[in-house]
C-alpha cells in the first residue's frame, strides 16, 4: 500500500514531504524513543510517534521509512518539515492517539502478522 492511499482512507493531513506520497508501506512501528526506533524499524515502515524533533527525519532516512505519522495532535518542528520536504518522506498528522490509529491501520492489513 502506498502512503497516498492511507492518507485518503484515514483523512490524514500531510504537513511535509509531499514528494514521497508514492512510497510503499511494508509495515508499522510505534515509538517515541528514537534509539529504540532506530533499532527496530525497517524499510517501508510507517512510523507512529509524538516526537517532532528534526532527528526523526534522520532516523526515517537511515531506515528508509515510508512515512511518519505524528499522532495525538502533535506537530513537527519547522526544521523537521524542511528536511522532510528535502528527503521526500511524508509527515502526516492526526489527532488520534497512536493506539487507535495504529489499530485502524492494522485492520486494513498493513504489517499484519499471520494469526
Amino acid at each position, binding site marked *: 500500500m502506498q502512503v497516498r492511499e492511507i492518507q485518503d482512507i484515514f483523512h490524514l493531513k500531510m504537513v511535509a514531504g509531499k514528494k514521497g506520497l508514492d512510497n510503499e508501506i511494508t509495515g508499522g512501528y510505534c515509538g517515541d524513543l528514537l534509539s529504540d526506533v532506530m533499532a527496530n524499524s525497517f524499510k517501508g515502515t510507517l512510523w507512529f510517534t509524538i516526537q517532532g*524533533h528534526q532527528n526523526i527525519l534522520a532516523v526515517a532516512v537511515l531506515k528508509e521509512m515510508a512515512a511518519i505519522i505524528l499522532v495525538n495532535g502533535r506537530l513537527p518542528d519547522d526544521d523537521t518539515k524542511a528536511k522532510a520536504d528535502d528527503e521526500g518522506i511524508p509527515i502526516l498528522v492526526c489527532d488520534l492517539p497512536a493506539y487507535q490509529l495504529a489499530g485502524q491501520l492494522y485492520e486494513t492489513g498493513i504489517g499484519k502478522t499471520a494469526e
Partner: protein
Amino acid sequence: MRAFKSDLHIHSCLSPCADLDMSPKAIVERSLEQGLDIIAICDHNSAENVAASIRAAKHGLRVLPGMEICSKEEAHVLAIFETVEQALSMQDIVYKHLKGTNRPEVFGDQVVANEFDEVDGFNDRLLIGATSMGVEEIVKETGRLGGLSIASHVDRPSFSILGQLGFIPTDLELDAIEVSDSSRWEAMRHEAIGVEKLPVVTSSDAHFLSDIGKVYTLLFLEAPNIEEMRMALSGKFGRKVGN
C-alpha cells in the same frame, strides 16, 4: 594550574525525587568530606535552592548555580552558570514553558531550604515534568545567558538525549556530555552517533548524600569558574578535562 575535583550534577531537596536530607548545608558538608572542589546544584527545572547552597559554601568549595532542564523531547540537559542571577533568568524562561502542579504524595516534596537547614517553603510547580522547550532552544538560551550546556547521563536509556533522540543533533552546541558510569560509556560510546567531538564529564547525579562525589571529573583550571571550565572543556590555553 591545578586539578579541581568536580561533581557537576547534584540534586537538592527541591527535586521531588531527591532525598529530603539533601539540604544545601548537608550537600556542602558531604562535598567537603568527599574532597570536592567544585559542585553544581542542578534541580529539575528549578534553581530555587542554588542561592542558599552558595551561601552555605565554606572552606573554598565552589558551588555553581545550575538546573537540569527537561526538554519537550524529554531529554535532560544541564545548564550551569557563574551567577545566581543568570540561573534565575534561565529559571524564568523555564517556568514560562512548564505546566502543571506537583502532587507531593505521588512525586515527592519540593522543599525550598535556606543555608541553615530550615524549610523556607514548598515549590508547587510540576518540576518532574517536561518543558515545552526543544533541546536547541534550551542550549541556545543557556549560552545566551553565559552558561554551559551539558547533556545529562547520555549513557542511560531514560531521559537522555541519545535515548530520546537517537543521536546528538548535528547543529546542537553542547559544551559537553555527561556520563554516570564510565565503564558503561566505554562499552557503548563507539556505537553512539554525534559524540566524537564532545568532551565527556562524569558526574554523580546525586539524589542522596551518599551519592555525592562517588564519581567526579578532574578539571585542570587556574580558578574554579565557568570561563575557566569552558576553556577546559574545549581544551584551550592549557586547561583540560583530566582523569
